[in-house]
């Protein structure tokens, strides 16, 4: 029996919708059978809370008196540079931005204590931030300097717009070299000393809708503690990734571009992050509701950690050299057991992405839906699927000759 999103919303409004998180649904469907479960369940909620570098926010700070044109000038939030290639008082701040005087990796590994992600966290927390700008001055925007405290509540708009989040699957990072390396996947000890992974596995949004049959442009989501929307497919979205028989990607595959009003989000779910030896970033919380439109979709949501494989990649060699050779494949069930076997060796594992917080997000979203506070939206267009022909390409370098 197929359902529509409109029908599910009617039930949500009446407080009658049956909602499970992506962990609970596994046992429920096992006991009831797919058919019965699909009939009974209306929504399955997912969640993820991990470091998501391609994140940032647009701000309109309002016009100063006299006016100043920041576009083409230089602007800093707490010494962190914002992008000023826009109109007079529109700015973009990326999570990876660093103060000009940050020592970066001059003494390796750098600590990267404060950057764009931290500014976003402080703004969301309602803290005043120092805005310092210089401009070249025009007849209509005469001012050349601006120094002021600024608070998110006084801005016209503060819009989180993350161009790539919620990666569907990710590498397991190891290091086969003789020295410790400091990567975006964390500290990797020499000679396969540890293995770091980064996905909530069975709770992660796109693993529960592997072919993007419900998620698309306009899908309403939990974003940073508030609500947001899927804006587009994320950069590097790669439906073409190799898949298991059940269709689960065995490699990084789909991604989401997400957008939402930063003013209603919370610093609990947007956390400024430092990646030793690598840079600054932000940890973002995302929850995707999956409408159970039919049995097929219900069945996708019953995915378990044992069904999901991730590639083990050597970050001391294959990764930096953009080679795709894998050192093996492991399941998330194995990863979560605390150790995996790589080339016959026991390697202790650690996660970069928080499973308990992902579960908390799925449960918050579930509660919102249960209480009728969150209605599902009909996507205007689904994300590009396997049949779209969308692929991820490496850069084709063409030497520039004079």
């Amino acid at each position: 029996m197929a359902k529509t999103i409109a029908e599910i919303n009617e039930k949500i409004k009446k407080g009658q919708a049956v909602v499970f998180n992506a962990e609970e649904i596994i046992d429920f469907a096992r006991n009831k059978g797919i058919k019965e479960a699909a009939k009974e369940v209306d929504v399955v909620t997912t969640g993820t809370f991990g470091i998501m570098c391609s994140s940032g926010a647009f701000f309109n700070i309002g016009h100063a008196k006299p006016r100043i044109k920041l576009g083409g000038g230089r602007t800093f939030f707490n010494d962190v540079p914002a992008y000023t290639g826009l109109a007079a008082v529109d700015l973009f701040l990326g999570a990876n931005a660093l103060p000009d005087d940050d020592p970066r990796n001059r003494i390796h590994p750098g600590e990267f204590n404060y950057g764009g992600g931290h500014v976003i966290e402080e703004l969301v927390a309602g803290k005043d931030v120092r805005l310092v700008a210089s401009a070249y001055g025009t007849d209509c925007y005469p001012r050349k300097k601006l120094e002021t405290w600024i608070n998110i509540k006084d801005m016209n708009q503060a819009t989180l717009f993350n161009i790539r989040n919620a990666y569907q699957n990710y590498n397991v990072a190891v290091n086969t070299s003789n020295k410790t390396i400091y990567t975006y996947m964390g500290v990797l000890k020499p000679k396969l000393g540890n293995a770091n992974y980064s996905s909530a596995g069975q709770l992660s949004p796109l693993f529960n809708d592997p072919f993007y049959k419900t998620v698309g442009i306009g899908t309403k989501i939990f974003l940073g503690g508030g609500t947001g929307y899927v804006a587009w497919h994320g950069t590097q979205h790669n439906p073409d990734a190799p898949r298991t028989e059940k269709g689960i990607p065995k490699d990084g595959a789909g991604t989401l571009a997400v957008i939402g009003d930063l003013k209603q989000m919370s610093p609990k779910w947007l956390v400024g992050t430092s990646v030793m030896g690598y840079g600054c970033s932000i940890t973002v919380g995302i929850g995707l509701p999956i409408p159970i439109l039919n049995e097929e979709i219900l069945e996708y949501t019953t995915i378990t950690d044992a069904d999901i494989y991730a590639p083990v990649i050597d970050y001391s060699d294959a990764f930096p050299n953009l080679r795709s050779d894998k050192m093996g494949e492991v399941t998330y069930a194995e990863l979560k057991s605390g150790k995996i076997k790589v080339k016959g060796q026991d390697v202790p594992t650690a996660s970069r992405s928080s499973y308990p917080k992902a579960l908390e997000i799925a449960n918050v979203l579930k509660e919102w839906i249960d209480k009728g506070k969150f209605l599902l939206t009909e996507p205007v267009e689904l994300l590009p699927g396997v049949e779209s022909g969308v692929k991820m390409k490496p850069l084709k370098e063409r030497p520039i000759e004079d």
Partner: protein
Amino acid sequence: MTVSKKIVLRFPKRMVDRPIVYRLVKDFELEFNILKASITPEQEGLLVLELKGEQQEYDKGIKFLIKNGVEIQSLSQDVTRNEERCTHCGACITVCPTGAFKIEPKTRLVIFENEKCIACGLCIPACPPHAMEVHF
């Protein structure tokens, strides 16, 4: 009553070449376990010890150290976790040399066992939201 405590000893350079630990063993019958030692020439020495013995003797030993100009700190206060900032990601687990972090299997929350911490400091920069804090 026997006690077992982890302490950080900092001693001034004039003390570096004196047999402090030997005296603790001999005069106060304390057992020791060196968790970390660093002595920089011409500077102060730092010794992280687990000391075990009778409470009375332990107290006397500590008094003896203080009298000789050794600064003592209880180790458990050295590295703490800011619970508000911890995201329970787990990045610290394989970084810590003493296994002070472990996952609670049911909830998958990351538990910090302060008693196992030797204050090596490795987790401090490696924790992405900087939840681990060191206090001197």
